[in-house]
């Protein structure tokens, strides 16, 4: 009896592995590419890539790109683009430097003012895009010039620094170790074991709920493989980092932000509305969604994240230079597109953009270790971007 009753409920969940893999090829493909790229560079650099010191550097170097990619993903999903983020990084860095170095502000009010300034810049640009329907490409191209110019003006063409030590910690600091073991950062390892365990716990809960509602889901084998993989990777990274200085502060900020944005895009009405707006603005509007306000806020959000990235970058260099952030926008946008976002809007995922950013980051880092010149690095990165998007288009055509 119970077997009979269960049968129809089982039906939808029994989607074959092949079918599931095919429809989620992109997601797995991204992850596998990243792992393959890491393995490749680990091999050709004779293990330098995953040395604790280098791994820490890798995180520090890419944190601001990842953080901006979160905002850029929303902008791109909404059907826009933001070319000004690199200049905002430079401008906010300059602003913070002036406040802290020349006016001797404490770093907390400086950070608050900087983030508000970022929001204001995003609002100023979003206003023209959302309410005046000026193409975002043009508005943010203008912003790119304006804020690059303003950072030059603020700094009077000079580098300004150094910063107070507390501010530098934003980028170069590590979380404290509560266990007090010497030579090994136990807190880091504990966090890196707990976090994946909690995440896996959540997904098991979700699986059970989906099972109860008889909703199709990832085949069990894949789920187990993925969970084991996630646990292994995070635990391994945690182990590596604990043998050095532990988790960088900025990694914590980044991880929290990734979690928040993944949640917002997947599980909230706001996230859903942004996808609808990018997928079909007219239909979204006729469904009662305030598309203009939504576009506006994606830019405000982008401005805040770019400001945060600006602070982190300045803290990392311990100086604000007029050149800070030049061409960051290209890395950020490339990360989103490599991560599967569609240039026409409506499609893209936070995890994709993060993986995209790390693919770029690992390649940058690995090629630098190998001593490949910046010239060829750019060529290779360009080709990878093109290949990733070609793969998308090919995939879509086949589906």
């Amino acid at each position, binding site marked *: 009896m119970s077997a009979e009753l269960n049968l129809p409920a089982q039906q*939808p969940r029994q989607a074959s592995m092949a079918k599931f893999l095919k429809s989620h090829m992109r997601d797995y493909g991204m992850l596998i590419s990243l792992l393959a790229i890491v393995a490749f560079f680990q091999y050709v650099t004779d293990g330098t890539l995953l040395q604790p010191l280098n791994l820490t550097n890798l995180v520090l170097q890419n944190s601001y790109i990842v953080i901006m990619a979160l905002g850029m993903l929303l902008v791109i999903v909404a059907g826009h683009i933001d070319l000004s983020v690199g200049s905002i990084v430079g401008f906010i860095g300059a602003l913070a430097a002036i406040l802290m170095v020349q006016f001797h502000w404490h770093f907390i009010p400086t950070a608050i003012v900087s983030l508000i300034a970022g929001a204001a810049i995003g609002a100023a640009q979003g206003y023209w895009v959302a309410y005046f329907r000026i193409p975002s490409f043009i508005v943010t191209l203008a912003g790119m010039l304006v804020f690059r110019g303003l950072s030059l003006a603020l700094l009077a063409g000079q580098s300004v620094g150094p910063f107070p030590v507390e501010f530098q910690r934003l980028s170069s600091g590590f979380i404290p170790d509560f266990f007090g073991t010497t030579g090994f950062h136990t807190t880091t390892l504990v966090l890196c074991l707990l976090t994946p365990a909690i995440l896996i716990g959540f997904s098991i809960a979700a699986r059970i709920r989906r099972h109860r509602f008889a909703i199709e889901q990832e085949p069990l084998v894949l789920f187990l493989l993925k969970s084991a993989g996630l646990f292994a990777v995070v635990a391994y990274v945690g182990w590596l980092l604990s043998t050095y200085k532990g988790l960088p502060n900025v990694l914590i900020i980044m991880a929290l932000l990734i979690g928040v944005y993944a949640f917002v895009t997947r599980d909230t*009405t706001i996230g859903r509305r942004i996808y609808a707006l990018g*997928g*079909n603005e007219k239909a*979204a509007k*006729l469904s009662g969604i305030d598309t203009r306000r939504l576009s506006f806020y994606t830019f405000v959000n982008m401005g805040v994240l770019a400001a945060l990235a600006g602070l982190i970058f300045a803290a990392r260099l311990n100086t604000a230079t007029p050149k800070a952030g030049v061409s960051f926008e290209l890395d950020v946008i490339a990360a989103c597109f490599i991560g599967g976002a569609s240039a026409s809007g409506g499609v893209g995922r936070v995890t994709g953009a993060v993986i995209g950013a790390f693919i770029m980051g690992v390649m940058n880092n690995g090629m630098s270790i190998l001593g490949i010149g910046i010239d060829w690095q750019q060529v290779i990165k360009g080709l990878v971007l093109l290949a990733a998007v070609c793969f998308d288009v090919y995939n879509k055509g086949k589906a």
Partner: protein
Amino acid sequence: MDSILEMRGITKTFPGVKALDNVNLSVREGEIHALIGENGAGKSTLMKVLSGVYPHGTYEGEIRFRGQPVAFRGIADSEKLGIIIIHQELALVPLLSITENLFLGNEQAKRGRIDWVAATARARELLRMVGLTDSPETLITDIGVGKQQLVEIAKALSKQVKLLILDEPTASLNESDSDALLALLLRFKEQGISSILISHKLNEIAKVADRVTILRDGTTVETLDCHDAPISQDRIIKGMVGRDLADRYPRRTSNPGDILFEVKGWNADHPIHTGRRVVKDIDLHVRRGEVVGIAGLMGAGRTEFAMSLFGRSYGRNIRGKAFLGGREIDVSTIRRAMDNGLAYATEDRKHYGLVLDNDIRHNVTLANLDGVAKRGVIHHEREIEVANDFRRRLRIRCSDVFQQTVNLSGGNQQKVVLSKWLFADPQVLILDEPTRGIDVGAKYEIYTIVNQLVAEGRGVILISSELPELLGVADRIYVMNEGALVAEMPAAEASQEKIMHAIMSSASKATAARAAVAAAARESLQ
């Protein structure tokens, strides 16, 4: 008289629909042949077969042009023989000059270099032939629709036209422009150019046509010779609409209650052409449990009215009042209109109705996300339940609710749009051409849904160009023409003939009024 064109036994099927069924059309050398029929009767499809838009092999039947059998692979082939079609939506590039448009794709060039002097001279000559005195340098965007139409015809002349096909050429023209155009057709006739004229305006047809072929439901009804005996409008209307209504509409005992929704003095202007009123003084009401139909030809302003009402999503300078249950409601934004119980399901489901890249589930909940969310966080399982529920109730045919809507058939897409609005739980649902382009079975199911809605005490406004549908589904019918409501009748007393008469007589009245104004203007000038 010899035939210039013979189309015999043309049959064209689209997936699930037979658009043309054994249609015959014969056009004589040097005549003006009118082609008429209701929306969806197959006129445009037939002309697309003729001009090669649907290439040889995608249809059955034979086409002979000047006695020779022809097999067009594309428009270029038919144009080479001098068959030129001018579509209702003009194919001109607005920001290019008249000359540039005239020779687009056919530039007056030697070895890739355009000879502008020769082109301009030839353009001036062509413009003279159609009676235009504007400079060939003028940009298309700077001349009116009437003149644009003439430029299209001049373009046809430049291609050595033998058979000119005009698809509702006067639909957007005013009286004097229409007259000029018809006079031009008569002049061409003297020069031996044959024309096929597709038109809804029977008075125009009476003025210029030599013969009339009537299409209905994809078949040829008859061909009438206007010279044998003067043809009355009644005669043509009867030919256009004479079909049975047997059991294509689910039965419903209509039991309208008190007035649920009312619109008073609704006006709206064209969004771009400032001051051009497209919705004029609409007064309308809907009772509880009532289906109210709005009949009218394409371009009558029905969609414009509905969209201007639904949160001002069309037009500007919108004036008027809306009432729900006797209380005035605010419909100034889409959100407010929805919160006040209105919903509008668009006629253009691909562009305005669905997020095609998204799956059924996301589309169904789009207009009422809060219905599956708590404090802004979506409850995914609840959302899937809702989608599955509508899938069952509306019999949406799909593999599961995670299927992208772009892969659904038209009828199923329409059901997703309906699901979206049903989930928003409106008091009054405006359905704009809900059955356009979908098959008979799906139509029946959609009528059933409409019946369920009114049985729950809601009101439905049904905009449709298919008169039988209005007669079969609505309780009461408003007739709209040129932006105004021109008649109102209970469906029981209505007939297709009555509705067509209401449209035609209002059109001729409006035409007469315009003529009077024009005459007065001329007099005052003299």
